């Protein structure tokens, strides 16, 4: 046992321990503490616990010294005692940070003790805070990586893309090279502008040919990004449009192909068989991607060849990037480019009359789409947080009510209002820290889980990780939540007149301002849950409709892959056709393959289109008035491989490359171009000046070209020699699970051309889910949040009705004693719950109606205001409310009147 006298002397700040009065004080305090210690030991505590318990009895030595000094002086009331003065001075000097910290620690210890006494309450609040905050922080960390993080260039907010668009701005695309040169010359807004053109090249990695994405680039493109090479140099201005065979490598490609060889400069790299000299390596964090796909990184850059200067003004295939001059706003740049586009329209009316320029921030181009739906998910997570906050606030208010008597007694015994508020807030703070810690754990776990099911099509999906700022955010959010929602109950508790509180049995949690606050929280929870559930039902409905929608083809047992033939080796349509004949014949012969074919674009993968003229009809002078048709070309029985039904006529034959030039068109094109006629045998042509007429020989079913959400467009399949594309997709109908054939297919391709890499190997099923992936992800997460919200709200309703029943046992007993039957009491309590639910549903319906403005763009085939989803959600909420009310209501109906009245 410690020497308590020594311990008291150490801590009690008295000016003179030898004075008889002081000695007696020290001795008595020590003896009291010793008694506490002995009592604790006698109750079976360990010596350490007993010691801690005794020490906890003195919370504030300065205060004790002041109280004792004042007690000693109390005989001579009115005359300030020297010791009391001295002790008070010490209390005033409390501003010192160290002493404040000591005070805080004291408060924290007291709060921790108080929370330990109510483990269920504490666990519930920590869990609610952790769930609400953790869900938000986890989603936020995905959003940050995917959509918020700036691009890795200096002053990235100045980097823009320039697109060709039309007067109506009904679409955007790359620029033509002559337009780019004029834009660059005539603009006043950009300090640099560069053009690029994607190129796929095969390189040899570890002895295997692989396809990599690179780009032709003007020297000025590097000025746009403002990044210097880590090694060597960039493309030089005099290498623009030249035969210079030089290449600048990305850090990635340098690592993959040269194992970060420091002497790589001057070495040769073979791109699709052609030799290039490595002149530079870009730094590690320099990332440029395709403007259409932020996950498709450009791995090398080479200069444009001379023939780019002869590119046509209506050949649009050059993405253009630019850097805004310092101080020039995006809008100013847009106005400037409108002026440039109008002058070009005057100068080149044949091609540019309807062409305008669209200027967009590169960040927005790459990330706005994915960011949009993630923001909606974050919105759903925020609703869950608000609902959890409602529960936390409800719990704190209930705790405040239960502790009213305790607080009132303490106030009666002289604790100041400030002191009580401080203590209650310290409790909230402690809960917040625990909730924040719980949230951090959930963020780490949640982001780990999310990484497993994030759609691969999400931009920068590989960068998703938990970082410090997100964890900090979790803690701050948790603290704010607990303090804001803890403050109201604390103020309320401190305001309560202790005399009123001391009166037994009269407290009713359902009446008065406190009751109003709690009911308000529950109504808000119900309303938020209704909004979330309504959104979820609409999203799930959209997803199901999309899944069930007939996409025009049968994705079962189909393997697809892409090949890009080297232009140098396959320089004629014949050479390419020979290659595909050879390859398809070998693939057909593989065991497990039923049929093989090739096509230039798979469904959902977009395509290229052109305007057509129809034989025997006047040619509209403005090309914009001619119908647009998607250009498809196929080798082999593509329609039958993909299960696209032939509706009329026949499929393509080898002979359709010449002679009548047979084409198969889709149903939509037949309906649009020949609405009341038989399309078979009709003629049309791409390009007006000297039309090469094509003959419709068949009509196929519609397939959606741009993804499941999009409608179908006009489409025409031509024989391969008429449109000999170098990049083609292989499609194989299989008798076995398609993925099993991948190694065989790879071997077969290499047998025909040992330098040809096989890329984008997927089953047609994967193709579909890639396109539904983001929607699936969004829908799943919002669905999880909606279920969470529903559960939390039911807990909230259950809590308030239980509390009502507990607080009104006496009242209910009186009713029963006066002859109210069980049924009537049950109805009475259920009625209380239903009034809450009804109010919540009313408010929520307004909120849900408002929220459809946000979710509308995520919906497909379902109107945001359609009746059934709304009615279903209302019924669900009411059912949940009744269920949550039922248990406490039954308890109320079983109240024993005798006991309830006795309790008074």
């Amino acid at each position, binding site marked *: 046992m410690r020497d308590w006298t020594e311990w008291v002397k150490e801590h009690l700040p008295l000016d003179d321990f030898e004075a008889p009065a002081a000695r007696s*004080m020290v*001795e*008595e*305090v020590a*003896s*009291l*503490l*010793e*008694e*506490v210690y*002995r*009592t604790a030991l006698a109750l079976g505590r360990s010596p350490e616990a007993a010691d801690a318990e005794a020490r*906890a*009895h*003195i*919370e*504030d030595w300065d*205060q*004790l010294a002041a*109280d*004792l000094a*004042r*007690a*000693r*002086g*109390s*005989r001579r009331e009115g005359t300030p005692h020297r010791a009391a003065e001295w002790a008070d001075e010490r209390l005033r000097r409390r501003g010192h940070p160290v002493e404040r910290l000591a005070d805080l620690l004291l408060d924290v210890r007291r709060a921790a003790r108080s929370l330990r006494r109510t483990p269920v309450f504490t666990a519930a609040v920590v869990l609610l805070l952790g769930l609400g905050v953790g869900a938000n922080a986890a989603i936020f960390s995905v959003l940050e990586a995917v959509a918020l993080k700036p691009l890795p260039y200096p002053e990235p907010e100045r980097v823009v893309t320039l697109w060709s668009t039309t007067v109506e701005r009904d679409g955007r695309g790359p620029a033509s090279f002559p337009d780019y040169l004029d834009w660059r010359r005539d603009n006043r807004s950009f300090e640099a502008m560069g053009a690029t053109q994607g190129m796929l090249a095969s390189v040899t990695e570890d002895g295997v040919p692989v396809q990599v994405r690179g780009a032709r680039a003007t020297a000025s493109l590097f000025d746009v990004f403002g990044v210097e090479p880590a090694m060597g140099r960039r493309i030089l201005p005099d290498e623009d449009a030249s035969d210079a065979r030089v290449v600048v490598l990305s850090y990635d490609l340098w690592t993959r192909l040269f194992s970060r060889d420091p002497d790589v400069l001057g070495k040769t790299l073979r791109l699709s068989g052609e030799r290039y000299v490595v002149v530079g390596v870009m730094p590690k964090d320099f990332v440029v991607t395709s403007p259409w796909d932020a996950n498709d990184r450009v791995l090398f850059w080479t200069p444009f060849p001379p023939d780019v200067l002869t590119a046509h003004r209506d050949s649009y295939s050059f993405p253009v990037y630019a850097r805004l001059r310092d101080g020039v706003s995006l809008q100013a740049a847009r106005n400037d480019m409108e002026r440039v586009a109008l002058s070009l329209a005057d100068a080149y009316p044949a091609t540019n009359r309807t062409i305008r320029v669209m200027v967009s921030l590169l960040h927005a181009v790459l990330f706005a789409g994915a960011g949009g739906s993630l923001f909606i998910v974050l919105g759903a997570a925020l609703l869950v947080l608000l609902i959890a906050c409602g529960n936390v606030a409800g719990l704190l208010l209930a705790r405040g009510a239960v502790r009213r*008597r*305790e607080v009132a*007694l303490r*106030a*009666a*015994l*002289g604790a100041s209002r400030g002191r009580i508020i401080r203590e209650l807030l310290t409790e909230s703070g402690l809960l917040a820290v625990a909730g924040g810690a719980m949230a951090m754990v959930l963020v780490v776990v949640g982001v780990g889980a999310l990484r497993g099911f994030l759609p691969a099509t999400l931009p920068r999906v590989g960068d998703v990780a938990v970082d410090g700022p997100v964890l900090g955010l979790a803690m701050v959010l948790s603290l704010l939540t607990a303090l804001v929602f803890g403050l109201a109950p604390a103020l309320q508790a401190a305001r309560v007149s202790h*005399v*009123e509180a001391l*009166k037994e049995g*009269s407290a009713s949690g359902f009446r008065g301002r406190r009751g109003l606050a709690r009911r308000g929280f529950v109504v808000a929870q119900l309303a938020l849950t209704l909004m979330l559930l309504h959104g979820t039902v609409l999203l799930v409905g959209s997803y199901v409709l999309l899944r069930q929608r007939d996409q025009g083809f049968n994705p079962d047992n189909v393997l697809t892959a892409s090949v890009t033939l080297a232009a140098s080796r396959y320089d004629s349509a014949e050479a390419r056709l020979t290659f595909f004949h050879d390859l398809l014949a070998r693939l057909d012969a593989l065991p497990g393959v039923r049929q093989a074919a090739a096509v230039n674009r798979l469904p959902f993968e977009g395509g290229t289109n052109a305007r057509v003229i129809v034989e025997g009809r006047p040619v509209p002078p403005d090309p914009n008035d001619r119908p647009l048709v998607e250009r498809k070309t196929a080798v082999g029985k593509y329609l039958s491989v993909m299960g696209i039904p032939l509706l009329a006529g026949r499929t393509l034959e080898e002979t359709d490359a010449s002679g009548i030039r047979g084409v198969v068109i889709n149903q939509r094109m037949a309906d649009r171009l020949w609405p009341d006629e038989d399309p078979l045998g009709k003629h049309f042509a791409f390009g007006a000046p000297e039309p090469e007429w094509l003959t419709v020989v068949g009509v196929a079913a519609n397939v959606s070209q741009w993804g499941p959400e999009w409608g179908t467009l006009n489409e025409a399949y031509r024989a391969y020699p008429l449109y000999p594309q170098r990049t083609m997709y292989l499609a194989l109908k299989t008798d076995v699970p398609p993925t099993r054939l991948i190694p065989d297919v790879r071997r077969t391709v290499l047998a025909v051309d040992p330098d040809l890499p096989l890329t984008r190997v997927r089953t047609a099923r994967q193709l579909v889910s890639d396109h539904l992936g983001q929607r699936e992800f969004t829908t799943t997460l919002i669905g999880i949040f909606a279920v969470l919200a529903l559960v939390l709200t039911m807990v909230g309703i259950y809590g308030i009705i239980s509390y009502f029943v507990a607080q009104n046992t006496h009242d209910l007993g009186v009713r029963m004693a006066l002859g109210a039957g069980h049924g009537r009491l049950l109805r009475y309590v259920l009625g209380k719950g239903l009034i809450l639910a009804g109010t919540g549903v009313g408010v929520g319906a307004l909120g849900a109606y408002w929220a459809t403005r946000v979710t509308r763009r995520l919906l497909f085939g379902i109107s945001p205001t359609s009746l059934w989803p709304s009615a279903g959600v209302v019924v669900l909420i009411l059912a949940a409310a009744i269920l949550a009310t039922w248990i406490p209501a039954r308890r109320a109906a079983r109240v024993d009147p005798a006991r309830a009245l006795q309790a008074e």
Partner: protein
Amino acid sequence: MFSPELKKGSVELLVLTLLEEEPRHGYQIGKLIEARSGGLLTFRVSSLYPVLARMEERGWVRGRWVEKGEQRLRFYRLTTSGERALARKRQTWRVYADVIDELTGLSHA
């Protein structure tokens, strides 16, 4: 009028009441109040002891060291002046409680 010390006075009332029955030592007083209030009123040494010191200073109670085994405990007993103080405090509290009852009764009507 009620003295502004009334709040703190209620602690004194409780302690005096316990000492009226028999002399007790400090920690015993705290424990008894806690037990009889069903745990609602708890006292720490740091808040109880100054009250005892104050009452002793005023002459309402008298403390005496008692050897009990190896322990020394300070027992307090009520003085005559303490008895008078107790009677006064009881009276004040009763009036106070009645007035409050009446006032709150009015406010609830």
